[in-house]
């Protein structure tokens, strides 16, 4: 907080005739001329900015990440509230110290009246930096450097201190910007430097001074820098990318708006003191001076809040994705104390599929995949307990009409609901036991078929849209709407290969989707061509080929796995269509095989699976999602190979002991290995 040295009425400021008491004796004395002062300020700004930018660029901070805004809205620094408070205090106090140091340096001894404020800010800044070190939020060499600069600004002679102030301003700006990336890092660095200068000037203007010239210069400088700051704030707002609908409904939006509004307010508060009135009497001058000091204090206060906002911005997750008609929408929502991810697939109006995450911790380090012990207490073993499943009857979604309950879908993680979104609706309301939240939606045409989304293949379609969204694509159709030529080639090549491996007969399981019907027909054609029998009824020695969607496949594999424990069942193997590659389906089988055009353990597919862990703990990769993401990135399909998958534990017989693999694996708790070379 900025404080003045006195709140009593002061005589009108007059031009100072005293020598500079803090002159460093280098021969330079007195305030710089107006143009010279402006040049010095501009130079200091440029120097601080250049220093900061050089560091940002050389450390790669300005590189734009390969992550869409929808994903970035889920990630924020994992810090305690104490760390955030310390960051805000540190940034504000250090900026004030740097700003005052700069102002003193370029305005001459007339600004010396702000020395007390400068020292107060320096003490607070130094303490905050040390606390940051104690909290483990900063390396001690950097703490020492920051403290040295703060001390330098506060204790060195004015001119030398101004050099330290430039470095301190650059350091603070770096500390603000380094947690950001790309253009956001640059504009946040700029706004910090500019607001630092504005705050320093406003603080000088806010304290009583005998030097009217210096006070006026400070006022002019503060107003000008505030206006520039507001301009850079507009850039911050634009780059931040918050949808208009979110500007006033999210902390981030409000903070970003404040970065524009507060500097404008600060400039406006300083503006009255720029007017001159040659006819005013002494009382009027004295009264106005008092008012101007008061306004300058409010101006400085506005800038302090703005700088606090800049510091806070880096601790907040990215702006949520705004609705775009016809496209999938992925946003974080907070239902009371629950932080969830919601996927609206898509925001097109009409029948709309909504997925709500299951409340798993998005930080895999905190996740647990153990199971209940069925009354067997396993003591303090990590990963061996699971929180009770959420009461689904208490989660609903509505578009203004009757709330629709969420439910589970076999083979698909998360909670699902299909809700009718009438034309003109602009938001969905999600309700849970802890609270409710709204999600903005829009209407528009979508590549995804609404009927499919509402049916059993909805989760797979939603995942395709999800992958497409994460990949920056322009929308995809539901995969089950048709058998793609690539999938047709994959399935038929696999059938030929199975025959060449000695498999004598296959039993097919399909469903009513267009893709499944086409796949069954293609498999029958291929089997007839190569001489592989297709059984009308299952036989123990048959191979099983599942060509249905996720839900039916999950049920089939669950039944077959149970039956196989009692007697040989489908001894020829359990084969799956490639689109059934998703943990929810694989985990229902004992050992399954499937053809794929990519290797799940390769870096790119594995990276995609890992990417999902930044959104929710229950996010699971799928064939549909990955291919949509890969195709949006322009990645080509690879050769088809057969793969085998099984859950591997090596300590069977102890349910719930599994430490488990965390989310982000293609088959958590299992292994997927190639079974063949490229299929011809």
């Amino acid at each position: 907080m900025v404080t003045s040295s006195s709140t009593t009425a002061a005589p009108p400021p007059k031009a100072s005739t005293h020598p500079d008491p803090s002159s460093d004796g280098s021969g330079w004395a007195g305030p710089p001329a107006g143009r010279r002062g402006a040049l010095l300020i501009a130079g200091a700004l440029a120097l601080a900015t250049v220093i900061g930018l050089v560091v940002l660029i050389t450390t790669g901070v300005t590189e734009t990440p390969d992550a869409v805004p929808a994903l970035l809205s889920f990630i924020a620094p994992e810090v305690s509230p104490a760390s955030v408070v310390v960051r805000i205090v540190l940034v504000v106090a250090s900026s004030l110290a740097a700003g005052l140091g700069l102002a003193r340096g370029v305005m001459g001894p007339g600004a010396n009246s702000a020395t007390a404020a400068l020292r107060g800010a320096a003490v607070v800044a130094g303490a905050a930096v040390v606390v940051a070190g104690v909290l483990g939020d900063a390396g001690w060499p950097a703490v020492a450097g920051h403290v040295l600069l703060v001390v330098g600004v506060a204790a060195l002679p004015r001119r030398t201190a101004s050099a330290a102030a430039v470095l301190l301003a650059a350091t603070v700006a770096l500390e603000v910007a380094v947690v950001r990336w790309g253009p956001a890092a640059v504009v946040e660095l700029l706004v910090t430097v500019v607001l630092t200068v504005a705050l320093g000037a406003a603080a000088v203007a806010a304290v009583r001074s005998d030097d009217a010239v210096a006070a006026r210069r400070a006022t002019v400088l503060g107003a000008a820098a505030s206006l520039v700051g507001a301009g850079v704030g507009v850039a911050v707002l634009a780059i931040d990318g918050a949808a208009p609908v979110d500007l006033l409904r999210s902390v981030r939006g409000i903070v970003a708006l404040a970065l524009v509004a507060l500097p404008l307010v600060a400039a406006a508060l300083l503006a009255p003191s720029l007017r001159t009135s040659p006819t005013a009497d002494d009382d009027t001058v004295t009264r106005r001076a008092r008012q101007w000091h008061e306004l300058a204090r409010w101006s400085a206060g506005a800038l302090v809040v703005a700088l606090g906002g800049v510091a806070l911005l880096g601790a907040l997750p990215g702006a949520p994705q705004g609705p775009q008609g016809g496209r999938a929408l992925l946003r974080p929502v907070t239902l009371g104390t629950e932080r969830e991810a919601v996927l609206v697939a898509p925001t097109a109006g009409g029948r709309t599929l909504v997925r709500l995450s299951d409340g798993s911790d998005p930080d895999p380090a905190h996740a647990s995949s153990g199971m209940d012990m069925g009354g067997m207490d396993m003591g303090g073993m990590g990963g061996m307990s699971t929180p009770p499943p959420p009461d689904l009857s208490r989660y609903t979604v509505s578009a203004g009409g009757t709330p629709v309950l969420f439910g589970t879908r076999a083979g698909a993680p998360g909670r699902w609901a299909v809700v009718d979104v009438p034309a003109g609706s602009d938001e969905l309301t999600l309700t849970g036991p802890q609270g409710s939240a709204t999600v903005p939606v829009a209407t528009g045409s979508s590549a995804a078929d609404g009927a499919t989304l509402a049916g059993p293949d909805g989760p797979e379609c939603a995942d395709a849209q999800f992958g497409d969204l994460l990949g920056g694509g322009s929308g995809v159709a539901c995969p089950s709407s048709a058998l793609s030529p690539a999938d047709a080639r994959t399935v038929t090549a696999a059938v030929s290969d199975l025959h060449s491996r000695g498999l004598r007969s296959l039993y097919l399981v399909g469903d009513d989707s267009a893709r499944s019907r086409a796949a069954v027909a293609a498999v029958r054609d291929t089997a007839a061509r190569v001489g592989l029998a297709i059984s009308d009824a299952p036989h123990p020695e048959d191979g099983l080929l599942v060509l249905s969607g996720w839900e039916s496949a999950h049920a089939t594999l669950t039944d077959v796995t149970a039956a196989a424990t009692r007697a040989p069942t489908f001894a020829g193997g359990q084969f799956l269509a490639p689109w059934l590659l998703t943990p929810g389906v694989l985990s229902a089988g004992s050992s399954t095989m499937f053809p794929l055009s990519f290797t799940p353990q390769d870096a790119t597919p594995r990276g995609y699976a890992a990417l999902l862990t930044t959104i929710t703990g229950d996010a699971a990769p799928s064939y549909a999602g990955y291919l949509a993401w890969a195709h949006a990135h322009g990645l080509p399909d690879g050769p088809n190979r057969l793969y085998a998958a099984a859950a591997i534990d090596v300590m069977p017989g102890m349910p719930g002991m599994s430490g488990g693999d965390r989310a982000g694996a293609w088959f958590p708790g299992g292994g997927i290995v190639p079974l063949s070379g490229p299929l011809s």
Partner: protein
Amino acid sequence: MSGGGRHRRLLDRLSLRAKVATIVAALAVIAGGIVIPTALSAQADIVPQRQTIKGSDGKDYWVENHVVPGAVEESTAQAQGVGKRPEYLVVWAGDENAADTAVPQVKKLPGSLAKPLDTVRNAAPGPDFLAVIDATKGSPGYGKVVNTATVGPLVENEPHHMQYEWHKGNTVFAGGLFSAVTYMFDVSKLPNVGLKGISLPTQTKCGSVPDAYWTNKDGSAYGTYMGGPVAPGPCRYTGGEVRSGNGFAGSPGEVVKFDPNGKLINEAPAATTTPEDPKQCLDLPALSTPTCANPHGIQVREDLKTMVTSDYAEPRDIILDPVKAPSPNLRRTTLRTWDISDPDHPKVKSVKYMPTGPRSSAADPLHNENRAMMETTVTNQPGHKGAFTMSMQGGAIYYTPDITAKDPQWREVYDLTALVKKLDPKADQGAGLNGGWLQTSPDDTTLYHAVMGRQPGALGKDDKGTAGGVISLDISKLVGDGTATTCSVTTPAQETNPGPGCPSEKSVLPINGDEKAGGPHWGALDNLALGQDGFYHQTTQPDRLSTANYFVARTGLDGDHRVCMEDIGKGGKMTLDTAFKDENTGQPCVDFNRADWPHGPFGNAKPHSQLFVTADGDVK
């Protein structure tokens, strides 16, 4: 006079140059705060050197060395400083997914928080690696990681076992439990590591889940593949045999043989053509020919033309009922002896079910003495034909005096109940002690055994669990008696006193004594000793061993990921080598839970097994 005035006068006395210097110093400190943590990190100045080979699938596979600059010269110089050639501990370790990493993100600038984008970057798994650690006793670099040889592109292999002992010229065979891959490393130029070959699951179609390896005198190696054929159904082995399996990670497993360069010579069925006990040999899904053939441990007596494998468990995890324990009969009770008269075509000679012991009961069959026969070890001296085995859940040690017999007679010879109080004073029984590594001394006088300890609750809700450690037993009498031995634990009294002629306690060294189930799973004897000629030679009197505190994280039996060194004193007493310290913490044992490795800031790693190795030029 105010303090400010004093400061001002002090500062006024400074010349302009001094003031500028002050500013520059501050700037330097700031820059240092940013740069030094990076510059001092383990990977600074390390130039990765990658060696790539083609796999059988046409893809590139590689090992990438990250030798700490000057490590070769340094370790050599340091070894020479103590009058030795360098000796290394080679540890096969898996990256613990970032998801599991407990190491906090390094923060540098005050108030800068952790960079959120790092969350995205860190989610990707890191590479698995072979860590090369300075193990030259007395060297100033003792315990330092001098190289991490990472493998790629496959990640999440779950590095598991290598061979039990390394000999001059040996390839190091290292398995990936979950990737079904065997890596063949060239360690002749340690600390640099080369990749000689890689065996992919498409090459070993009749088995999966590779476990352990045994190297023969000619440099070839046998390996156990614990899990079933990659595809279910009939599988044809190299010799033309056919067995039906229930698929990847199921049953039956196999034994493979690789030539010294890693080329696959043979796949041999571990299952017999006749059905094994359908009650004890549960297979999921059920097989028409039930089998317990899931070989884990493997040791060989080439002179006796006999190989022994121990069956551990069907490694697949099929959850039929999340609240009901699967049958304990998925954990095997069997030992197999093999005829290796034709070394390239081993044939199963006997399948023996270990007897239940006096503790066994229907109430808790999972902890019967014979449950989960994980490891086996053979005697070594020409006059001895015996072999030992142990049970992971049973907490018992079994022995047969003659593995060449057509029908070997295995009997329980020791119950860990007899010494469990030395590991954990509050413990009272050996059941469920999670034993692992089992190794006879070269002179057949001592049996070493690593024990993780029991998790709390394993025997019921009142079970407090036990700590673990490494133990050694005097087996000289038992082995010396040959087939005339009368040792057999059959009565409750023998649980604590097995009787004359049976193994007896030699030394017990608790490791992580305050932590339940925190002991070692694996170990290795230092089979190399410095000769008068200054070169290393094979020794029959190892004076130290190393242990590793890690099993398989996925099972919930994880460990603290430390690799320790233990001295073996006169009389066989084992003591922790406190000079073998972690270079970061300064505490005894090398901690694989660390933020930075020579290959990068990949965080915690899981060390499963280790070998004592030297460069080929340093051993004779």
